[in-house]
């Protein structure tokens, strides 16, 4: 399935512009930065999941000969409490600051309490350990249901639940309870022939980027604060730092370094404000790099959740009613991304009667951060396993049941939005027609093994947000492309391709650069699957601006009124000049050509994705092996198909990890017991097969190239598809993630 528009460059696979730097070790990531006079920072973290801070004594620590400065929450400039919105919803400033340096209370084990600057990283850690903090431990709550129970220990004495938009009087661990209603689900359930209702839980998991958070800050002598960060959004860092430190944004410059993965987890700030405060105190640049343990204990994982889903169907498979109860753990501060979960929970289906309740619940775990389609995989685990059960009970093929009810253009969601052109049906049809779906499962590898196949689909709505792009035309016809989107997976090249397509150039003619916040217009985060969509759109528009100016130059040169531009050639009457030939003459004709564009597009056009997976379950150990895995996703238009496949394969394997192994294993006292890559077990090359991909292209009607972001929807369905495959193999319905060997073994023994 492909759009018919003909492109020269779009849809091809040129090598990435930063490839040589990244395979030779020359690319500079945040931790690689060196600077004269550089000091090294370390963070002291709370050993308690919930405690009052009685006192902090830095006397002994500050006497260490290598100590240069110590900061605590008291070093933040005093400002009145206010509500700020930095792109992740409205939040009190005190919560944003509180997560960076605890004030009065620590709310999770790993919560930062103080920062130290010293002459070496080793000394900084030693000095942090010399800071004497007296804690008064408090009882902790670690899951949404326990935190919501009456009498549960409260994390924030000032937190009131917004109950349907109205604040309640008593303090609560629930920061928000909202409800989306469409039709009358109770009435429709009464008319259903079959109803399946299930309760499911999912554990806290981490994005697992391989590069720990790192920042270097220099409070310069001209009063400007310069930051070099590993971040998904340099402008978010600039704006958040300015807000937290009470500075005008013009005082802050953020330079994004090469970034070693993010998946949503490198949007919030952690060490950045601490490094800035330490630099202000010392007059030196200060670098803070987390250890892996700090990343797991002190950055933002994604919410664990408690979900109840109830779906009713007619005998013919028509889905008539659906209800969802979504309680998501925000961690220490509100913001569990339960709202997108509510948007996604039934988004793939046309169900007239829906009631969706969402609860944002604080617990004594790290404050959560986005992770690839945040909230959606948890919700899809519930919906897609319940649908599998309905299909089984109705004796229907699971893809037929989904196709019968699939959302399409005009389908309304419970959040009120109506779909424009989407590719849900096309994804399902591609899955059905895929050779994998009808291939034999093969014989189990031993007598105690059982095999099964599962399917599931998922949705993510994607984001638009502002992006800016500048194009500088050089005398040899090459074009410098200036952008502000952190490149995490090859976006420099796909964005450059979208400009080059307009200009009739090759990808190799482009010179893309990701620059600091002084040098490019505002650009939102690399997140929400928006970079190829929005920044690519800006690049397309900037290239059109270049074409317009080049035509003016040609008209002046040829003394004509009108110039045509087609297939990389400028024409007027008998006159012909290629883009490169004209570029060489621009200097003689007039001013240099600089194209520019900024966009803030709506209509990101959500992406649907699906999975077909074969598993083998060892009935003696409970271990599940992935035998074959096919990922299908609607990309709208695949600009660089290798990078689209890469997103699908990467999201799939993260989904496999989420399904089978990954979890924050918490002690009753709220200590993370597996804070290393040995025990927080992400998939290795040995744990997964090749990940086959099928790219579906249902063009997004609003985008110049039909792009839909592809970064996220691919992680939504793997856990559900694997659960369905385990059921097909064993007859067991799994209701908890991860489905690791102990959990599968417990289910086997229960039967």
């Amino acid at each position, binding site marked *: 399935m492909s759009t018919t528009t003909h492109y020269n460059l779009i849809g091809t696979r040129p090598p990435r512009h930063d490839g040589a730097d990244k395979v030779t070790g020359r690319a500079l990531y945040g*931790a690689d930065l060196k600077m004269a006079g550089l000091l090294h920072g370390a963070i002291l973290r709370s050993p308690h999941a919930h405690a009052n801070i009685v006192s902090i004594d830095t006397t002994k620590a500050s006497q260490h000969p290598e100590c240069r400065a110590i900061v605590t929450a008291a070093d933040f400039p005093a400002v009145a409490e206010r509500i700020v919105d930095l792109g992740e919803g409205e939040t009190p400033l005190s919560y944003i600051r509180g997560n960076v340096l605890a004030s009065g209370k620590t709310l999770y084990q790993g919560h930062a309490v103080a920062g130290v600057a010293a002459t070496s990283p080793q000394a900084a850690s030693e000095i942090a350990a010399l800071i004497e903090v007296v804690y008064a431990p408090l009882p902790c709550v670690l899951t949404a249901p326990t935190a919501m129970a009456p009498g549960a220990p409260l994390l924030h004495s000032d937190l009131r639940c917004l109950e349907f938009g109205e604040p309640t009087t008593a303090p609560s661990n629930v920061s928000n309870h909202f409800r989306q209603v469409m039709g009358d689900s109770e009435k429709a359930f009464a008319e259903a022939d079959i109803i399946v209702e299930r309760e499911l839980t999912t554990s806290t998991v981490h994005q697992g980027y391989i590069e720990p958070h790192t920042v270097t800050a220099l409070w310069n002598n001209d009063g400007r604060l310069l930051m070099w960060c590993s971040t998904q959004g340099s402008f978010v860092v600039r704006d958040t730092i300015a807000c937290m430190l009470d500075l005008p944004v013009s005082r802050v410059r953020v330079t994004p370094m090469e970034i070693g993965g993010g998946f949503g987890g490198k949007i919030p700030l952690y060490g950045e404000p601490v490094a800035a405060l330490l630099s202000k105190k010392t007059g030196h640049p200060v670098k803070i790099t987390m250890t892996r343990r700090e990343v797991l204990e002190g950055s933002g994982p994604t919410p664990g959740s408690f979900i109840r889903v109830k779906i009713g169907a007619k005998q013919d498979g028509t889905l008539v009613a659906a209800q969802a109860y979504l309680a998501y753990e925000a961690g220490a501060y509100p913001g569990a991304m339960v709202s997108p979960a509510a948007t996604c929970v039934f988004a793939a289906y046309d169900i007239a009667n829906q009631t969706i309740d969402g609860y944002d619940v604080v617990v004594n775990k790290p404050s959560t951060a986005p992770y690839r389609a945040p909230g959606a995989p948890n919700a899809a685990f519930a919906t897609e396993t319940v649908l599998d059960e309905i299909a089984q009970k109705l004796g229907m093929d699971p893809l037929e049941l989904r196709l019968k009810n699939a959302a399409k253009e005009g389908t309304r969601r419970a959040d009120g939005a109506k779909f424009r052109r989407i590719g849900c049906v096309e994804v399902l049809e591609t899955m059905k027609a895929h050779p994998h779906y009808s291939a034999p499962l093969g014989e189990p590898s031993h007598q105690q093994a059982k095999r099964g196949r599962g399917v599931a689909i998922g949705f993510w709505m994607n984001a638009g947000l502002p992006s800016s792009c500048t194009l500088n035309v050089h005398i040899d016809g090459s074009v410098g492309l200036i952008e502000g989107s952190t490149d995490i997976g090859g976006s420099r090249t796909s964005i450059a391709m979208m400009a080059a397509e307009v200009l009739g150039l090759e990808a190799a003619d482009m010179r893309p650069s990701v620059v600091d916040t002084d040098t490019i217009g505002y650009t939102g985060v690399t997140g929400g699957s928006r970079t190829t969509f929005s920044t690519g759109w800006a690049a397309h528009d900037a290239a059109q601006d270049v074409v317009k100016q080049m035509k003016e130059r040609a008209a002046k040169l040829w003394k004509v009124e009108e110039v045509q531009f087609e297939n990389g050639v400028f024409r007027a009457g008998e006159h012909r000049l290629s883009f490169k030939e004209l570029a060489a003459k621009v200097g003689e004709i007039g001013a240099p050509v600089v194209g520019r564009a900024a966009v803030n597009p709506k209509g990101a056009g959500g992406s649907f994705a699906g999975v077909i997976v074969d598993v083998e379950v060892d009935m003696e150990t409970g271990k599940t092996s992935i035998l074959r895995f096919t990922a299908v996703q609607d990309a709208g238009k695949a600009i660089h198909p290798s*990078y689209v496949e890469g997103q699908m394969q990467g999201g799939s394997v993260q989904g496999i990890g989420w399904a089978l192994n990954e979890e924050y294993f918490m002690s009753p006292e709220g200590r993370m017991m597996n804070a*290393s890559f040995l025990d927080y077990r992400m998939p290795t090359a040995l744990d997964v097969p090749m990940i086959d991909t099928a790219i579906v292209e249902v063009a997004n009607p609003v985008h110049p190239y039909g792009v839909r972001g592809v970064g996220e929807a691919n992680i939504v369905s793997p856990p559900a598809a694997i659960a369905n495959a385990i059921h097909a193999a064993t007859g067991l319905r799994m209701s908890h993630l991860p489905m690791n060997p102990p959990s599968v073994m417990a289910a086997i023994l229960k039967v």
Partner: protein
Amino acid sequence: MKVHVQINLNGEPAEFLAEPRQTLLECLRDTLNLTGTKEGCGDGNCGSCSILLDGQLVNSCLILGVETQGQCVETVEGIAQGSTLHPLQKAFIDNAALQCGICTPGFLMASKALLAREPNPTEPQIRMWLANNLCRCTGYDKIVRAVQIAAAEMRAQ
């Protein structure tokens, strides 16, 4: 008290001063300015700091700098031949076997060690050999394929 260490680094003699507590990874990155070798965990579980020590694949975060006295150390900075990329480097670029690229130096070193031992590895052999190296972006598919392609290229040479 720092120790004077002499090694062969990427084919050239090199020397540095190391505190006895400093890992080889710290010596490479902080003292010798070879920041191509990355730190992902510091405890031997992610493989981002993989290097070759006398031809053996090791995690440089688990070796002390002072232990390498007189040994040959090979890092990602040393695998290209002058301005010509190693077939593995070229295969990783051409086959999109990297996304963020932070794990790439470690994968290149591990793959190089594999191909030195087994010029024609099977997919399971590649997966087993690379299982000490974590990649969170690619799902390993394109990495495995790039190693197969580079292996074929190297056998043809």
